[in-house]
């Protein structure tokens, strides 16, 4: 169980993460995409999944950061990728609607600075290869450990 610190945002969360760039999970974030239909709906669904556990940055108006979402062909075992160089989520176009939303939520977690969590440690949207687990309360705590509790910012 992670502790909810409620402290101020980490000054430099990326210093301990393998990512070149991360975004504040509690600051307003705009998700942009050229997709339509079910793929566009999946982006909104992923935003709602994080908001549901209290990570409110995605989708808030007045965005201070922009993350683009692209749906691209991929090999069978690769579902999504967070391109930390240009803040882009690349999502496999071969996924089902439900899988697609969860993979977007997973890659958003990487954009927040989260690393993979072994399933043996806890169930998480950040489990590697996850196609079924939505963000949990523990995932909210993991985000809060980096950026503080969004509800108390």
């Amino acid at each position: 169980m992670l502790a909810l610190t409620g402290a101020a945002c980490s000054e430099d969360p990326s210093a301990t993460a393998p990512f070149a760039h991360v975004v504040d999970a509690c600051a307003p974030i705009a998700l942009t995409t050229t997709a339509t239909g079910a793929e566009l709906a999946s982006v909104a669904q992923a935003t709602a999944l994080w908001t549901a556990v209290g990570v409110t940055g995605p989708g808030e108006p007045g965005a201070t950061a922009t993350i683009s979402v692209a749906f691209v062909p991929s090999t069978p075992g690769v579902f999504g990728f967070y391109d930390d160089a240009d803040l882009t989520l690349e999502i496999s176009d071969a996924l089902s609607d439900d899988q697609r939303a969860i993979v977007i939520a997973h890659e958003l977690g990487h954009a927040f600075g989260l690393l993979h969590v072994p399933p043996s440690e806890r169930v998480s949207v950040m489990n590697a290869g996850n196609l079924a687990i939505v963000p949990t309360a523990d995932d909210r705590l993991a985000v809060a450990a980096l950026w503080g509790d969004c509800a108390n910012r």
Partner: protein
Amino acid sequence: MRKILFVVACSLVAGSAFADPPKPDPGMPPLNPPTDPTAPTADPTAPVTDFTPTPPPVTTTTTTIETTTPVDNPPGAPVPGIAASDTGFVPYQPVEAPGPYSYAWHDPYLASGIGVGFNIGGGLTGFTDRAMRNTVSSNVGGLWDARASFGTHIPIGLDVGYIGSAANINTINGNANGTLVGTTVEAALRYNILPHNTINPYLFAGAGWQRYDVQNMHFAQSDTGMAPHDDVAEFPMGAGIGLRDLSGFNVDLRGTFRATTDSTLLQESNGNYAQLHSWEASGSVGYEF
């Protein structure tokens, strides 16, 4: 063994007298021809001396030579008690070479007697599973191998080999590329169809261990069903052909199918795990003795 005793008596005689003169050969002129009565006397006036030659002292030496005649041994066999190295004589031992279609379990022309070879080579490999074929950048990748073979010139032999492979992984939109590195150690029994022929086709089957490592992939920032590594048991089977000459140099060409146990290296979005069955076409060169 039969012993023959020779006794040689030698008499050293001074002058023309023999202690026991031999009978003259009729075909040879006598040493002391009888005196011709008509022949003139050299010096009739010379006083006649009753000369009786005194035989010289006779020295008789008896030498005993004991020899052994190897009448019971075949020609070329060493003489007991006399080493070949002492005599400089290398006994000839006839060797019967197995015919090209023989299934003899010994080849006298090889130092090992059975054929022991070491080969290194390379070739092509690929996965038979669709998901794995789509995961690597090309349906065909490269491999390198090293193999020790025991019994290349007898009907049944053993191959022990190492096979390495590498294939690029194209993951998503050109990003997160990695390399799939395979390591295989296996042993296989080989059935040599023409074990004593210059060209030897063979079949083989065995078992081994195979490990795949995904290298240089950005696992930390992707959601992927690909594990960083996986270990499986594998069962190679196939056919090959060996080309060799009397110098020991050989060329080996083979095709292999490797069946593997279930793998967790790659999970597809439908929940299924890809299989790691693969094929190989390779060639190698080496030396056998």
